[in-house]
């Protein structure tokens, strides 16, 4: 038995009830592209955004809330199991399907679920519902943040400061897509497939290598050094603070355009078959860089496809591969601590160039 009351934590991450519009963020193209690509193709494995303090990292992530598409889920399921995805359903939904029943479905918006740094383990993984245990004398599972995050974006600000034991929980869930709970007399498992988005300032310390490897894409952001552009950033922010609602209206058309772009990209991405050339390129790059795991190759192919889809194309072009390579490879290069060998972008470009010469 599962308790439902906590699953609907309201997310308000705004000034005066309005989020800063995504389309009003000046520049930061890489960060925006990486986030959109992940929304289009959630199996990319999330984004880590690294950068100096105060460079609109969390503002951008929070702005995504307003763009998220709807997804079709089984009505009444508190884990919001997707109707299509029979492999990663919770036990009760799977039972319905195997019995041959056709459960009702509904459309709900994807959400951004924020995991605060000082969250306790029981709230992250879920635990025994105390109120129920006391008033009814029954054991009941109370879902935690990982349950809320199923099918949604799980966002951790300052992820490098997260306590190790919470990171372990995240890693376990991310690896299997399932959260196993064995605590306080409760034994329970439920699907926990989420898109992990983290922001951090590297000055404050490093991320654990295992966690870093979980992220499909990593973006490094820098502050704008051009005073004109910077003035524009400040001007927009001050205008927003003065009257958030009026400011958002100004950007509504652009917001709508991005929403449509995402919906269209989600439709065509399955049409884009990874061609031989793309796969060969990915393999050649990984081999030349000496990356051990296969995650780099796979992510590279997926990301290139997502970028093509976002652009409305059904064919992956050179630009997509270059962009994808820049976001999924650099953080996988370092195999030893303090290894400064870095990412040789010229060599990678050379390989891509050689495969895509013809076009």
């Amino acid at each position, binding site marked *: 038995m599962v308790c439902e009351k*906590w699953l609907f*934590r*309201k997310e*308000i*991450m705004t*000034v005066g009830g309005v989020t800063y519009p995504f389309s009003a963020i000046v520049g930061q193209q890489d960060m925006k592209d990486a986030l959109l690509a992940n929304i289009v193709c959630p199996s990319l494995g999330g984004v880590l955004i690294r950068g*100096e*303090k*105060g*460079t609109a990292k969390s503002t951008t992530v929070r702005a995504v809330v307003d763009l998220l598409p709807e997804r079709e889920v089984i009505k009444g399921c508190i884990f919001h199991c997707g109707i299509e995805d029979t492999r990663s359903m919770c036990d009760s939904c799977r039972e319905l399907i195997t019995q041959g029943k056709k459960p009702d479905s509904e459309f709900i918006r994807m959400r951004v679920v*924020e*995991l*605060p*740094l*000082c*969250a*306790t*383990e*029981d*709230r*992250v993984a879920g635990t*025994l519902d*105390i*109120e129920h*245990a*006391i*008033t*009814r*004398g029954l054991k009941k599972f*109370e879902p*935690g*943040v990982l349950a809320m995050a199923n099918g949604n974006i799980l966002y951790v600000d*300052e992820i490098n*400061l997260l*306590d*190790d*034991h919470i990171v372990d929980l995240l890693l376990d869930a991310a690896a299997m897509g399932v959260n196993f709970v064995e*605590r*306080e*007399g409760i034994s329970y498992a439920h699907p926990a497939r989420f898109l992990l988005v983290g922001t951090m*300032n*590297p*000055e*404050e*310390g*490093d991320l654990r290598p295992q966690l870093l490897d979980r992220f499909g894409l990593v973006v490094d952001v820098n*502050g704008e050094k051009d*005073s*004109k552009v*910077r*003035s524009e*950033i*400040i*001007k927009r*922010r*001050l205008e927003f*603070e*003065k009257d958030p609602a009026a400011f958002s209206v100004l950007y509504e058309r652009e917001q709508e355009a991005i929403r449509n772009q995402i919906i269209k990209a989600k439709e065509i991405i399955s049409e884009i078959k990874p061609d031989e050339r793309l796969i060969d390129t990915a393999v050649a790059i990984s081999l030349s860089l000496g990356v051990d795991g296969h995650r780099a190759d796979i992510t590279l192919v997926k990301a290139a496809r997502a970028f093509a889809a976002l652009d409305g194309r059904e064919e992956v072009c050179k630009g997509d591969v270059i962009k994808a390579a820049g976001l999924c490879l650099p953080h996988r290069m370092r195999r030893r*601590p*303090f290894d400064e060998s870095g990412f040789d972008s010229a060599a990678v470009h050379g390989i891509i160039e050689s495969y895509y010469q013809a076009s």
Partner: protein
Amino acid sequence: MNRNFPFTGIAGHDHVKEALLCALVCDTIHSLLIIGSPGTAKSTLVRSVEALVEGKKVITIPQNITYDRLMGTINLELAMKSGSIEFSPGILSQGNNHILYVDDINRMDEGTLQCILTTSQNGQYVLEREGLSRVIISRFTLLASMDPQEGSLSSTHMDLFDLCVRTDRTCDIQTRAEIINRVLFFEQSPDEFICAYEKETEDLKTLLIKARERFPYVTIPEGHLDLITSLCIELGVEGYRGDLALARTAKALAALNQRDEVIFDDIKRAAILTLEHRRHECQSTSQQQSNSHSRDKERESDKNDRSSENQHDTSGISNYQRETRSGENQKTETFSSSAHEMYFDIGKTFEVIRYLDEESWRATHKQKTGRRSRVISLDSSGHYRSFRFPGGKCRNDIAIAPTLRAAALHQHMRDRNGVVISVKKSDLREKVREKKVAHTILFLLDASGSMGVQRRMVAVKGAIMSLLTDAYLKRDRVGLMIFRGSHADLLLPPTRSPELAAKMLKSIPTGGTTPLVQGLTDAYLLLTRGKYALASENKTIVLLSDGRGNVACTNKSPDAEITEVARKIAGTGVKFIIVDTEVGFPRLGKARILADDLKGSYFRLENLSVQRFADSIKEMTNLMP
């Protein structure tokens, strides 16, 4: 009636007053930090603000606050007894629409600090603790004060403060006398004193209300906005928080002066309040430049180095001994030898033995989490391990299942009062939590001329690199301090990013005399005063030196002074590990003596390596019949 010292009655401190007024005018100025020595009216200023705004209280957040009091928690005892879950709000939610005040913020626990600062920026926080899950709106103005002698805040935390001002020491005799007069007057008859400033206070209140109304309509001319951003770029301010704070403050100043447009003077004054604490980044970039400059020098000196190497090999020791003897010529020696600075590469790295005596660490509360050792935590953080009977005071950290199980046995004999399970106080079990403790390790490196002998520094740098790798794997905090010439330099304050330390390692120069006492004292004080004293209870200084100090701080002989200082600081909470780097012949063994005086552990550099250590054991066993 408010019995605080009136704002208008405080003499001097115009900058601080200006900053406080700006924060009161503009709601998007979220936080203000006041830096100043003790007794410079910091908290008086903060508390006096209460009388200026109707309906706002100044709520103090105590230093040792726990997460549950800060963010709110379930009243678990009540929950267990009546079965209903009630949220008891914490200080952050009680502070909504009020002013929160933290004194000595630099001594606060880092997690708590992070939580307060991000909440002040976001105007809300997410609570995911102990069965509670909600987003709580909390908009407040954060006022904080600190004494810079107690340590500093990290640049990230500094950046989260919109404004930062210093209370200066008042040197003017008349003002000082005036202050004493006023304070005495206030202490004798507070009501009368407040009445005397009543008129001014009322005027200021009206001004504030008008300025708040005007604020949204104040505009910044296009050219002035560019001025703001180029100023920030020039000063190397990271991120846009500085620009935004500057723009907001300039607008607030214009509103306070009853203008509808920001003028140049507003920006000038606002820049002082908003950029000063953010500009030190600029210095670090210039430092990088000097680093790259020194790298050029390094290449040059590498050549010199090779040519002078042979010479060193033969005459190194005698050279050095001469240096030790020449007490009077020390100053000139320093100069001449710093002219021959050398830069050595990082030598071979190796796997490190378990050099920290981990079993002896005692469990203490408020420890940073790390991976080296586990302890039972005394507050309600960490991994829920097992349960026990609560001793004495109930910490509101109840282990539910064991409590229910304990209560279940007695149900048939109890009056259940409508609930299914009746829980009595005797059933309560509390959680035993365990967490991994981090260590703060400060590497104190002797970079004097003697370390250049036989290119010893190469091996030493290799050893530090290995120790850093070890620290990286175990999530310790590491800092790096060197001493040479006449003083000690803190190259890297303790941080969780050993990578930074590794980057710096290469550009450490070698050369000059050995101010061992100075280095030891500075390192010790760093770890025992200010924020590092509180941040983690497990502190270690790893001293890499040959122990041949030759610069004294007082007029005693260097050796006598070292012994005296070492005995004084031995066994006072900081652990010492002495890595003896002495090479050549004759060996003076001074590091060994120092290790004994410090009650620290002693290793020879070579024995730090797992491989070498194993080899030396093998050798010994082979020799045995």
